[in-house]
């Protein structure tokens, strides 16, 4: 239990540090930002002044940070100037979409990677393993950008998949199943792209974790006892390898989140990625900071989840 509380505390500390960092980022831009805002005809001078006093621009740093942190915790994350709405509601819909996409892509990638990694490790050195190693290395040399662009090309040329967005026109009138199908058809290509991009690294790590487990003395002893191969693989080696694999899960959340930005922009999936890019281009600072914080929260949450899973699955950690 102490392990868990330590990890949770760690996570909180990390989030606090990230929020401080984000806030500092916020502060580094505002001078010219608010002046630029005054020039913007869409925003009234009162709004700007109201915001300035609300966020206490004239007070010392810790006070401003405190104010801001409080508002964020209450759910008020600032105001988006380009969308002319508070940031909160803007964020949630997008965040949900990104989560949907990345979870499906993660599932896909792992579903593909685990069998292949295990099979590769079990057949280490033979041609199957080598072919697998070769193809993962080959895939790694293809830049993410290219993969996504090719998938987009596929959509444009064949018309089998929509070329962007999350829903088709007339979505609200669809039945439940049609709605599901519609969304599915839309996230098919982005999810596949994300999976393809993250899959090679996963396979490599899974393979090496399994190889290490298979070559450990206790497995060799078990083999000497005549335990059949498949049972050995799944009931002995896999649990032993699960510790590094669960850590890998936590780590892969980061790469997945980063890659999702690119795919969302290219395939116009309405997630946090395009929101972020637009916000930067239009100098919508509160949105930028909110997105950074949110994505960090996802990452920290993902790692914490991995820690919990580790605690539950690995008895060595419980004893400690």
């Amino acid at each position, binding site marked *: 239990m*102490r392990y868990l509380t*330590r990890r949770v*505390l*760690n996570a909180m500390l990390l989030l606090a540090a990230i929020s401080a960092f984000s806030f500092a980022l916020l502060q580094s831009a505002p001078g010219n930002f608010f002046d630029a805002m005054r020039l913007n005809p869409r925003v009234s001078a009162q709004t700007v002044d109201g915001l300035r006093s609300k966020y206490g621009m004239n007070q010392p740093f810790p006070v401003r940070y405190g104010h801001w942190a409080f508002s964020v915790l209450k759910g008020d994350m600032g105001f988006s100037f380009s969308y002319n709405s508070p940031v909160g509601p803007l964020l949630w819909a997008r965040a949900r979409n990104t989560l949907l996409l990345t979870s499906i892509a993660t599932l896909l990638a792992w579903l593909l990677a685990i069998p292949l990694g295990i099979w590769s490790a079990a057949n280490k050195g033979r041609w199957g393993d080598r072919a697998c190693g070769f193809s993962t290395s080959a895939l790694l040399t293809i830049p993410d950008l290219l993969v996504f662009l090719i998938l987009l090309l596929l959509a444009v040329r064949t018309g089998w998949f929509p070329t962007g967005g999350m829903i088709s026109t007339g979505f609200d009138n669809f039945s439940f199943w049609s709605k599901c199908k519609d969304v599915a058809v839309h996230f098919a290509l982005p999810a596949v792209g994300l999976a393809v991009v993250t899959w090679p690294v996963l396979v490599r790590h899974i393979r090496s974790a399994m190889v290490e487990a298979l070559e450990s003395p206790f497995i060799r002893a078990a083999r000497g006892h005549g335990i059949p191969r498949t049972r050995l693989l799944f009931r002995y080696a896999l649990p032993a390898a699960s510790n590094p694999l669960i850590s890998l899960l936590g780590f892969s959340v980061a790469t997945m989140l980063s890659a999702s930005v690119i795919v969302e922009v290219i395939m116009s999936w309405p997630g946090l990625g395009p929101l972020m890019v637009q916000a930067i281009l239009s100098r919508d600072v509160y949105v930028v900071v909110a997105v950074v914080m949110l994505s960090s929260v996802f990452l920290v949450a993902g790692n914490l989840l991995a820690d919990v899973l580790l605690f539950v699955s690995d008895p060595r950690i419980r004893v400690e």
Partner: protein
Amino acid sequence: MSGFRKEPLVCIRGLSKQYVQRRPLTSAKFTIRAVENVDLTIQRGGTLALVGESGAGKSTVVRCLSLIERPTAGEIWFDGVDVLKLRGKKLLPLRRQIQIIFQDPTSALNPGMTAGEIIAEPLVIQGEGTKSERRHRALELMEQTGLPAKWESKLPLEFSGGQRQRLAIARALALQPRLLILDEALSGLDLANQEMILRLLADLQAMHSLTYVHVSHDLRMVSDLADEVAVMYEGRVVEQKRTAELFAHPEHPYTQDLLDAMPSLESICEERSA
């Protein structure tokens, strides 16, 4: 080896070393008492053997003596100088006088440096001599330790185990030390090499009037070469006597255990013929 008693070279009083480990992010600490209240005297020109089982604290004592670590309490007097009171630059001249040879010669030599560079390194660190003077000295030392001078530019991996230990000894002699500590220096070698190194050490001791401290758990070897033996058990010195006396009249029960466990030559021969 030394016939009469002079002022001892080294006097250790009440040496203690504790390691405190803290678990990260908690306040739980646990202390390991490696060495507790150790007294030792080492006579000039003699050889002291420090024996005991693994974990008895022998290595910790010699690491403190060779100034690699600082003890938590106690005094170390070297030739009348209170060593632990010295800091920084003042410690430098003392470092020349006490040298240590480790058990594993391979790890004690930087694999990327040539033999000549390794031997000359102490001179470089202490800023002695010009480049050619240092080289000259290195070659001299190689000769003394039985290594051919033409191996000067070879890397450690080209040497055998016994030769690497010679290299380590040559390096240790570079600064003309008075005290040489051998921390299980022979344990990693085969018997033939052990013999050769022991003979080399004996020659060097005579040549340079060295004082030795042998840390070992091999009592038979100890009985051959040591003038005095100090027995350590669980961080304390339980007995320190002249060799012959210790073997004949052991006082502490642990010493007796050690001696009993040591197979005598007769018993080995008996086993073999049986």
